[in-house]
């Protein structure tokens, strides 16, 4: 017994205690992180859902390359055409398209101001000073372009705004931009898709247009 007590080597009991302590710490830390994350998500959602001042129902489209001329773009405008038809009677929808690529060269940069009426198709956000050069005014020529290219006529009364993400293109990474360069087509053929694949190899597989 005396030998056991004087040994420098930890006993089974002390190892167990140490491991239990480590385990408890890991559990505590994980629980705290999960709680903090959940709280952050709830607060984040609450901020945007309850802070929503729009009188219309906002329908957003995530379409980084809305002018590539591909089949994916055709689907985008075909869906907007349907929404335009639904909106014609009650005028309750607002379309927002997030794009990296400007929908046409004639687009002008927009400014966010509180006093602008919704008819100007600008997003109303006084706190968005940093986005002054990032939003784009909707001008009717894009509808002409869509009609010419896809033979789709979209209701002119539909409220459409583009949000230009030109300064965020780097988030997509070079592979997606490379993919974009592949699908940025001339008028020779229709493509059926736009895809953000997860590797460059699968990107090749995915671009089955």
């Amino acid at each position: 017994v005396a030998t056991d007590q004087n040994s420098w080597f930890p006993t089974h009991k002390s190892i167990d205690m140490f491991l239990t302590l480590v385990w408890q710490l890991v559990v505590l830390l994980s629980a705290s992180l999960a709680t903090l994350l959940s709280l952050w998500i709830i607060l984040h959602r609450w901020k945007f859902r309850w802070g929503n001042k729009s009188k219309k129902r906002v329908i957003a489209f995530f379409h980084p390359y809305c002018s590539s001329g591909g089949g994916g773009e055709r689907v985008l405008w075909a869906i907007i055409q349907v929404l335009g038809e639904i909106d014609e009677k009650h005028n309750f929808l607002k379309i927002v398209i997030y794009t990296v690529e400007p929908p046409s060269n004639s687009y002008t940069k927009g400014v966010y101001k509180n006093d602008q009426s919704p008819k100007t198709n600008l997003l109303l956000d006084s706190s968005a000073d940093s986005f002054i050069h990032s939003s784009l005014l909707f001008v009717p020529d894009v509808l002409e372009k869509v009609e010419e290219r896809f033979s789709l006529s979209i209701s002119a009364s539909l409220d459409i705004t583009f949000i230009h993400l030109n300064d965020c293109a780097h988030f997509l990474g070079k592979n997606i931009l490379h993919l974009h360069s592949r699908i940025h087509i001339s008028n020779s053929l229709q493509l059926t898709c736009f895809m953000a694949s997860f590797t460059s190899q699968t990107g090749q597989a995915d671009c089955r247009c």
Partner: protein
Amino acid sequence: MESWGTMRLAYQALLRSGSECPSVFIDTTGCAFTYLTANVLFGCKVIAYVHYPTISTDMLSMVWERRRVTYNNQAYIANSRITTYVKLVYYTMFAVAYGTVGSLCSLVLVNSTWTFNHINSLWFLAALRKVISIVFPPCRISSTQHTNDGDRRERERIVLSIGQFRPEKDHELQIESLALLFEKHPTLKGDVKMVMVGGCRGACDQERLRHLQDMAKRLDLESSIVFCVNQPYSVVEDWLGKASVGIHTMWNEHFGIGVVEMMSAGLITIAHDSGGPKSDIVVPFKGKQTGLLASTAEGYADAMFEAFTMDKKVAFEMRKNARLSVTRFSDEEFNRSFKKQILDSGLLIS
């Protein structure tokens, strides 16, 4: 990394909506990981229109079986057991993550039966909630549609191929099939031509085109194949009006807009016996044949021979049925189906 990139981009995009946070987030680009941002962080309802799954069970089984070297599996990867296992583990993990984020959708619309089957098995929770439906994509039907007279008139003995010069389009199989057709029926040489219309978007595609031209030269088909590269759509329409047979060789194409265009132009279309063409497009119309299916060079050669030697009355019937059958892929049909789905879902009002 790219998925992470799309998530960050979507986050920035939604942040910029400021006080007009979207109620509904619609994705038509296949960026599934953006659903996590839109739904979890911003509380948006998500609608997805899926052209094809980012990862499919076919891809997983192909890696596992390592049976063929494809455009997605370079030779050294396919031949290495370790890289195969690593790739398989990575793909499986990605498939689980993809299935989880996909299940966040409130409404999922897919473009074909093939895509439906894959998405239904991958986005398991969305499948359980029965929110996945097929809505065929809007295709350019009216501009290429011909009349009954167009079906009856004499067309040139041209086999038309439409598609970018990408590896998955398998243009080699088309050239092999033509060579085999001439080998089996030498009298057709000089009489039948193949026209390959497509786009080249970079050095890789150019290199592939050169390889195809060399292949045609090697097989003594130089005078029988015309390469029509990066031409405007009017040229495609011109060929669609002149050719009598259309060929499509891509394995497991998710839908096949090119096949629809050829059928709507009244061509006797020979499509690959897989994917969307097999399950949705080249299917009987009112019990009558609308085209031919093949998967091997021999099959394509036989189908081409059948198409060129077919009785005129039978050919007319097939062209007419093909033309009429593809009207279900028109803009009007898409409009009607999508409107029904979105109104039934109640996402625009709730």
